[in-house]
C-alpha cells in the first residue's frame, strides 16, 4: 500500500464510519466499539504517513477536476501532517471519553452524535491534507455543517440558539470573506495550490495584500479572531466531548491551521514580511489575546471560561503567522499541538465534573477537589501547560512565539505574551485552587467525612483525562523532535527580507 492510498484511507475510514455506525445504531455496545475501532484505524493510517513525511515523502493525489483548473486534490506537507496527526490521535481518547460521558450523562441520540463526530473528523483530516485552498475550503464547510447537529445536540432552546449563532458566524465569515478571498486568489494567481514561498509574491500588488489578508483572516472564522469569536462560546452548549475534541482541537485548530497555511503557502512568510501586510493582524491578534483573556476572567461558567481561553490561545497561533518570521510559523504550529493537548484535558475535566458532580459553575466547585482529586490534579497540569509554565508542553510554544516576536522586533508583543500568561494564571488556576483548598459552601453543616469521599467520573472519562495530562508533560521533554520536524516546513528562506 503506497502513501497515496494511505492518504485516501485516512480520510475514507472516518468518512465511511458513519454508515457502519448507522447500521449498528440499535446496538449501543457494537456502535461504540465501532467508533473506537474507527478512531484507532484512522490513527493507524495516519501514523505511517507521518513517518513517511518525516522521511521527506510528500504524497499527493488528485481526485477530480471540479471546474477547469480547480482540482479536488490532496497533498501532504509537514504542517498538514501535524494537524492530521493531532486530530486523529486525539480522536482515540475522545472516542473513549465520549462513551463514558454520553452514557454517564444519559444523553439522547448517541448514534447521530457518533455519526456527526466521525464526519467532522474526516473533514478535519481532509482539511489537513488538502492540496489546495479550494479543497481546503470544501472540507472547511463540511466541517461546519457536520458539527452543527453536534452543537444543537441537546435540542433545548439554548442549544438551538447556540447552534444558530455557531452556524451563522462560521457560515457568514466563510462565505462572505473566505470564499471571496479564495476566488480573488484564483483570479490573480491562477491557482490555489499551496506552494512553498506562497503563490502571491509578484502577482499581488502589495497595496492590496493587507486587504486580501483581512479577507482571509476574518474569513477563517474558525480561528475565532475577534470580533468573529462569538460562535465559540455559543458552541459550548454542546455536550462536552464535542467541546473537547472539536472546539478545542479539530474545529478551532482547523481554523488556525488554515491561517498558518495561508500565511505560509499562499502569501508566503517572505512576502508578508516584505510588504508588512500582516502588521495590522499582529495587533489585532494581540488585542484578541488580551481581551478574550479578560472576558474569560469574568465568566463563572466553567466551559464559557475555557471557551474564551481558547479564543485567546488561538490568537497566539494567528499571531505567530502574522509575525511573518520562521519562528512564528514554528511557534504557531507547535502551539497547535501543545494547546490541543492542554485544552482537551481541560474540557474533559469540565465534562467529568459535570458527569460526576453535575456542576457547571466555577463558584460551585469549592471543595470538589477532595472528591475528585485525579480530575483536578489533571486540570491543574493542563492549566499550567496552557499558561505556558515548565515542565509542561505549553512553555515551549510560548518560547518560540516570544522568539518570533523578538525576531520581528516586536518587543511590545513580547509584553503582550507576558501579560497574557499572567491573565491565564488569573483565570485558570483559581479553578483547581478553589476545588482543592476551599470548603464547600453548602456543605459546611455536614462534616468533612462526607465531603472527602472520592466520587470520580467513570473510568472511561478519567483515563483519557490522565492521558492528555500526561501528554502535556511528555511533550515538554520530547519537544526537540517536534521542533526538528517543524523545521521542515518549507518557507523558502531566500524569500525572507
Amino acid at each position, binding site marked *: 500500500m503506497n502513501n497515496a492510498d494511505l492518504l485516501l484511507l485516512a480520510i475514507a475510514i472516518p468518512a465511511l464510519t458513519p454508515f457502519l455506525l448507522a447500521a449498528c445504531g440499535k446496538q449501543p455496545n457494537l456502535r461504540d466499539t465501532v467508533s473506537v475501532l474507527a478512531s484507532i484505524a484512522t490513527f493507524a493510517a495516519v501514523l505511517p504517513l507521518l513517518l513517511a513525511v518525516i522521511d521527506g515523502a510528500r504524497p499527493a493525489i488528485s481526485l477530480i477536476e471540479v471546474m477547469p483548473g480547480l482540482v479536488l486534490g490532496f497533498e501532504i506537507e509537514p504542517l498538514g501532517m501535524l494537524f492530521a496527526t493531532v486530530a486523529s490521535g486525539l480522536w482515540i481518547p475522545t472516542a473513549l471519553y465520549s462513551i463514558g460521558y454520553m452514557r454517564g450523562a444519559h444523553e439522547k441520540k448517541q448514534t447521530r452524535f457518533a455519526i456527526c463526530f466521525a464526519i467532522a473528523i474526516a473533514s478535519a483530516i481532509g482539511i489537513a491534507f488538502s492540496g489546495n485552498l479550494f479543497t481546503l475550503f470544501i472540507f472547511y464547510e463540511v466541517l461546519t455543517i457536520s458539527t452543527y447537529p453536534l452543537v444543537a445536540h441537546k435540542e433545548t432552546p439554548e442549544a438551538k440558539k447556540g447552534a444558530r449563532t455557531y452556524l451563522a458566524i462560521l457560515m457568514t465569515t466563510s462565505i462572505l470573506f473566505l470564499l471571496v478571498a479564495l476566488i480573488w486568489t484564483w483570479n490573480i494567481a491562477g491557482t490555489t495550490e499551496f506552494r512553498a514561498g506562497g503563490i502571491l509574491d509578484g502577482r499581488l500588488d502589495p497595496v492590496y495584500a493587507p486587504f486580501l489578508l483581512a479577507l482571509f483572516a476574518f474569513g477563517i472564522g474558525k480561528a475565532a479572531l475577534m470580533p468573529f469569536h462569538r460562535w465559540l462560546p455559543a458552541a459550548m452548549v454542546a455536550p462536552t466531548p464535542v467541546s473537547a475534541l472539536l472546539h478545542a482541537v479539530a474545529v478551532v485548530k482547523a481554523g488556525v491551521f488554515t491561517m498558518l497555511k495561508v500565511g505560509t503557502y499562499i502569501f508566503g512568510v517572505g512576502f508578508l514580511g516584505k510588504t508588512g501586510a500582516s502588521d495590522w493582524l499582529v495587533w489585532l491578534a494581540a488585542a484578541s489575546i488580551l481581551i478574550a483573556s479578560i472576558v474569560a476572567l469574568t465568566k463563572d461558567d466553567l466551559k464559557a471560561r475555557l471557551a474564551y481561553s481558547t479564543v485567546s490561545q488561538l490568537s497566539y497561533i494567528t499571531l505567530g503567522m502574522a509575525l511573518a518570521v520562521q519562528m512564528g510559523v514554528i511557534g504557531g504550529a507547535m502551539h497547535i499541538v501543545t494547546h490541543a493537548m492542554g485544552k482537551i484535558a481541560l474540557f474533559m475535566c469540565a465534562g467529568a465534573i459535570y458527569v460526576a458532580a453535575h456542576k457547571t459553575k466555577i463558584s460551585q466547585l469549592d471543595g470538589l477537589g477532595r472528591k475528585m482529586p485525579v480530575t483536578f490534579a489533571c486540570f491543574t497540569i493542563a492549566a499550567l501547560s496552557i499558561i505556558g*509554565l515548565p515542565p509542561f508542553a505549553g512553555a515551549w510554544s510560548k518560547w518560540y512565539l516570544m522568539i518570533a*516576536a*523578538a*525576531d520581528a522586533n516586536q*518587543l511590545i508583543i513580547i509584553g503582550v505574551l507576558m501579560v497574557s500568561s499572567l491573565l491565564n494564571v488569573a483565570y485558570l488556576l*483559581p479553578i483547581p*485552587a478553589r476545588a482543592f483548598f476551599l470548603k464547600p459552601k453548602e456543605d459546611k453543616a455536614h462534616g468533612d467525612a462526607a465531603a472527602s469521599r472520592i466520587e470520580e467520573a467513570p473510568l472511561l472519562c478519567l483515563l483519557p483525562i490522565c492521558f492528555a495530562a500526561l501528554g502535556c508533560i511528555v511533550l515538554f521533554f520530547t519537544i526537540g523532535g517536534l*521542533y526538528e520536524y517543524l523545521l521542515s516546513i518549507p518557507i523558502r528562506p531566500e524569500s525572507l527580507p
Partner: protein
Amino acid sequence: MPEYLTPALAYVAAALLVPFVPKGALRGLYLAIVPLAGILIFWGLTPGTYNAFNVMGMQIGLMRVDALSQLFGLAFSVAAILAALYAWHLRDTIQQIATLLYAGSAMGAVFAADLITLFVFWEGTAIASVFLIWARRTEGSFAAGMRYLIVQIGSGVILIAGIVLLYRETGSIAFTAMELGSPATWTILAAIGIKCAFPFLHNWMHDAYPSATVTGTVVLSIFTTKLAIYALLRGFPGTELLIYIGIAMALFPIVFALLENDLRRVLTYSLNSQLGFMVVGAGIGTPLAINGAAAHAVASIFYQGLLFMSVGAILFRTGTARATALGGLYRTMPLTMIFCLVGAASISALPLTSGFVSKSMILSAGGYEKMFPVWIALLAASIGAILHTGLRLPYLAFFGSDGGLRPKEAPGGMLAAMGLTAALCIAIGVMPAAFYALLPNDVPYEPYTFSHTIVQLQLVAFVALAFALAVKRGLLPKAERGIVLDTDWIYRRLLSAILGSIGRLIAGLWKGAGRMIASSLNWGAGIVYHLHGPRGPFARTWPTGAMVMVVAFLLGMTLVVTYI
C-alpha cells in the same frame, strides 16, 4: 547520552512518591532523608558542568557545580531537613509534596548552568510554593495565594522574555555574569528583582508569607528570596545600581517592622531588610563583598528560619501571631523563647552568632571600598534590625504585657528543629573558619578582632538600652490591632478601584451599546419586516391593476434611461 540525575530530579521523584509513604513517623523520616540524599548527589563533585545536552540548538546544563552553587545547595538542603523536622507533626500530603517540589526547584535553579533550566525551576518554585499558602484553606489565603502566584509567575515570564531577548542578542543561553545595558539584561534583572523583593516589587512577600500555614511560612522564608540573591550573585555581581537598591531595601522595611502587629509580618519585613544587605554585597561585587553576601544569605536562611519557626510555634499553640494578643509567653514556652532569642541575637549580629560573622563581611567590604554612605546606611539598618527583630519581637511575644495565654510548649518536632537551627547559628558564629571555607571566593577574613567585637557589643547594648527607655517613655509605636499600608495598597485598593470603575464603565457602555444596537436592530428588523414580511409591500399579492402600473412605470423609466 545525557544523564539526568540531579538533586532536583531526586526531589521531584521523591515528591511523587510521598502519597505512597504511610503518614506518620515514616513519612517524617522520608521527608528528612530526601534532602540528605540530595546532598550526596552534588557534594564532593569536582567543579564543572554535569548533565549537559543540546535541545533544539540550545546548550542545556542541568548541574553546574562550583563553590557558589554548592554553598547554596548545601544551605538549602540543610534548611529542607530542618523544615521537615519542624513539620514532623504535619499530616497534610499536599503541603509535604509542595515542600519537596519547592525545595527541589530551588535546588534545580541553583545548579542551573543555563537560563532555560533556571527559568524552568524559577517557575517551579513559584508554582510549588503557592500550595503552602493555599493549604491554609481560607478565603483570605486563597486570594493572597492568587496574588502571590501572579507576582511570582510574573517574575518568571519577565525572566523568559529577558532570556528570549538575550538569546536573540548573543545566541547563547548560558547563565553567567551579565552587563546591564540591553533590554535583555534589564528585563532579567527585573525578574530577579521581583523574587528578591526590591523596593516597590517587594510587597508579594509581606502579603503572602503571613497568609501561609504555620509550617508553610517557615518553608517559604527559606528558598525564594535566597534563590534570587544567588541569581544576583551569579548574574549581576558588581552592578553599581544594586548598591542603591540594596540600601533602600535595607532601610525602608525598618519602619514597617516597627509598626506591624502581626509578628510573622514583622519577620517578613526584617527578612526584606536583611536581603538588602545581600543585595548591597552583590552590588559592591568585590570578592569579599560576594563572600559576605553569600555568607549572609546562608546565615540568614538559618536565623531567619529560626525566628519564623519560633513565631510559628507560638501561632501553632496559641492560634494567633498578633502581638496584641500575645505577651508573657516565657512562662510556658521557655524553650521556644530561648531559641527565639538565639535567632534574635543572630539577626542582631551579636558576636558568637552567625549574623556577626556574615554581616560584618558586607560592612567591611563597604568599608574597604571607602563607600561611606553605604557603610553608614547599613549600620543604620543593622540598628533597625536589632531594634525590631532583635528586641521588639521577643519582647512583644514572650515578655511585655501578659496576654494571659498559657499555651503548652511547642511539640517535639518543632523544638528539635528549632534547637538544631539554633545550634547551627551558634556553631557558625563560633567556628567561622569552617564556614568561610565554603564561600565562593578565597579571601582571608577575620571577624573576631578586638575592635570589631567590642564595637558590635557596644552597638547592641546601646540599642537595647535605647529600646528599654523607649518602651518606658512610649517613644516606640504601640502594638495595636490593625494593618499597615504598603505598596499592596496600589493593587489591592487603587488598582482594583480603578479597574473596577473602568470595568463598570465598559460594562455600562457595552450594555448601553448592546441595547442601542439591539434596539436599532429591532427597529431595522421592524422596517424590514414591515416591507418584506408576509403583509409587506414586497410580499403582498398586488391587485392586477397595480401590477400593470408597475410594469408601465418601469417601461417608462427604462425608456428615459435609454434615451439619455
